[in-house]
């Protein structure tokens, strides 16, 4: 096991990793920007190192300063969290070249899964269903028209290097296609420095179902069941839950088996998630992309399975064998997570950084609050607006909803605007309560 781990991230996920390290007896080094210099969670680290000014490009994305900090502090591994450098294959390589283990998959697996077109090819070879579409990046507009004709409109144009729901455009016919291609390429170039795009059939009213997988460096794999993540706004997840309220046991088996097949085919190790779309009939699923990192919503799976995913990342990275037997991993009860963002839902979800003057966290039976904020905390303007994750776990879905509703009333954040009240509206909606929703639900039903 590592003796000292450097956490190359901030906020709630840095705190999560700090806690896991502490329980495993691992010393910790926390890097931070000047904007995060006063954050309370830094006190939990054995050592902290300032790596730059507020803007992420000058701090949390500075791989040189992060690795320098690891060397200075004598860290033998780096945990990248999610976002920032978590899926940066070059960073993973640089760490390992410097004799510092990167807590995540191999650079090769990361590259393979990070290229959406390559990932699709991998799925096809592994006989995992994929959304009908182009075999690889679209070379030119003419090819795009051919593919669209073959799979049928509407189609979705996606960035090969994309992720997080960005760099996507829908086209309903040939006339729209050319314009949409141009826009998608431009956006992809700006956001990911790679204008390559591919095409998929656009599914009407799909559900987003993802499977959590753990793999070790010895070729052992387990899945930890699925998460339903269809409650989204602009492709950003708002609410996640496990199990999915609609999938049958057979579908669950098929989905999870497909995810493990993909992980094995990619020689993936560490924690990873394989995302699928379920069509509106609820009978067919299609692989869309893989996330080669620990995810924001990982606590949902931890609560229904009792497995500490971050602790396993640390063990796997240090070379330990997965001591989890698939037969012993059970899905018990129902967990729901609400992402609490410092955004004003009444003003188009505009981010609202600023000082939290009053703060009261929710609590009680089956309640988990993963957050770095407190009364007096200054939310910086440089990073995402997530201030905490509220996760509840009860024996049944209705009880989990009741508990979450209660927590969303209990949480008190002033004077900063948050999405807590918006989450209450979702939970109160009959469609949500009955489990009848798809990825367009929020925009259709709540943001008219």
């Amino acid at each position, binding site marked *: 096991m590592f003796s000292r781990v450097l956490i190359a991230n901030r906020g709630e996920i840095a705190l999560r990793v700090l806690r896991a390290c502490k329980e495993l007896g691992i010393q910790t080094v926390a890097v931070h920007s*000047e904007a995060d210099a006063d954050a309370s969670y830094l006190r939990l680290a054995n050592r902290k*190192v*300032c*790596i*730059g*000014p507020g803007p992420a490009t000058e*701090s949390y994305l500075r791989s*040189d*300063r992060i*690795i*320098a*900090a690891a*060397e*200075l*502090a004598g860290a033998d591994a780096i945990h990248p969290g999610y976002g920032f450098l978590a899926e940066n294959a070059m960073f993973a390589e640089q760490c390992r070249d*410097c004799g510092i283990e990167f807590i995540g998959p191999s650079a090769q697996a990361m590259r393979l899964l990070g290229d959406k077109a390559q990932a699709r090819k991998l799925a096809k070879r592994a006989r995992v269903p994929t959304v009908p579409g182009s075999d690889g990046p679209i070379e030119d507009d003419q090819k795009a028209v051919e593919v669209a004709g073959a799979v049928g409109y509407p189609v979705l144009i996606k960035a090969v290097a994309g992720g997080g729901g960005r760099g996507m455009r829908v086209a309903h016919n040939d006339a729209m296609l050319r314009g949409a291609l141009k826009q998608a390429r431009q956006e992809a170039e700006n956001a990911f420095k790679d204008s390559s795009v591919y095409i998929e059939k656009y599914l009407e009213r799909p559900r987003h179902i993802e499977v959590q997988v753990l793999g070790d460096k010895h070729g052992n794999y387990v899945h930890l069941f699925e998460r339903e993540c269809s409650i989204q706004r602009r492709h950003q997840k708002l609410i996640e839950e496990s199990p999915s309220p609609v999938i049958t046991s057979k579908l669950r088996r098929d989905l999870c088996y497909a995810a493990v097949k993909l992980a094995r085919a990619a020689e993936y190790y560490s924690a990873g998630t394989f995302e699928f779309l379920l069509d509106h009939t609820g009978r067919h699923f299609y692989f869309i992309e893989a996330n080669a990192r620990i995810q924001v919503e990982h606590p949902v799976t931890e609560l229904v399975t009792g497995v500490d995913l971050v602790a396993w990342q640390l063990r796997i990275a240090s070379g330990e064998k997965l001591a989890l037997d698939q037969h012993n991993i059970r899905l018990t009860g129902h967990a729901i997570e609400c992402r609490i963002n410092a955004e004003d839902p009444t003003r188009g979800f505009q981010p609202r950084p600023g000082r939290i003057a009053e703060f009261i966290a929710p609590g009680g039976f089956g309640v988990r609050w993963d957050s770095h904020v407190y009364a007096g905390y200054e939310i910086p303007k440089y990073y995402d607006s997530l201030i905490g994750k509220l996760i509840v776990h009860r024996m049944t879905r209705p009880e989990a909803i009741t508990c979450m509703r209660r927590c969303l009333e209990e949480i008190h954040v002033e004077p900063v605007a948050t999405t807590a009240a918006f989450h209450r509206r979702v939970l109160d909606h009959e469609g949500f309560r009955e489990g009848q929703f798809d990825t367009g639900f929020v925009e259709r039903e709540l943001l008219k």
Partner: protein
Amino acid sequence: MDIEQVRQLVELMKEHDLTELLVRDGDRRIVLRRGASGQVVVAPPVMPAAPIVPAPAAPPTGPAAATEDPGLVPIRSPMVGTFYAAPDPDSKPYVSPGSEVGPDTVVCIIEAMKVFNEIKAEVAGTIEKVMVQNAQAVEFGQPLFMVRPRK
């Protein structure tokens, strides 16, 4: 309001032993305060609707704890690494208290991942204090030297 005018105002203050002078010129305003040590400190002019532009250069923020003397400015580390006072173990340190420096004067080396970086003063003045020890690990923004700036 140009530098020459400010200079004249400063002379005026010294001549008449004034401690504070406020001059308004249309929308512009300048406040000049003379410190106890006889130093004249110029407060920045207040200009309405001027956008606040963050300083692009080496880190401007950070704890002021290191400065007891408000006349001193810190040279802060622009990187994470190990501080070395001299070009090599056998040489004298680049600077020490009393050394005169200009913006391009190399004041120390910071090493990271076997790459040795020469750090420039970025300020003109005299080194008053060395804040770190040879071979000490330094973080971004950490004060390395305190300098009394030359006017």
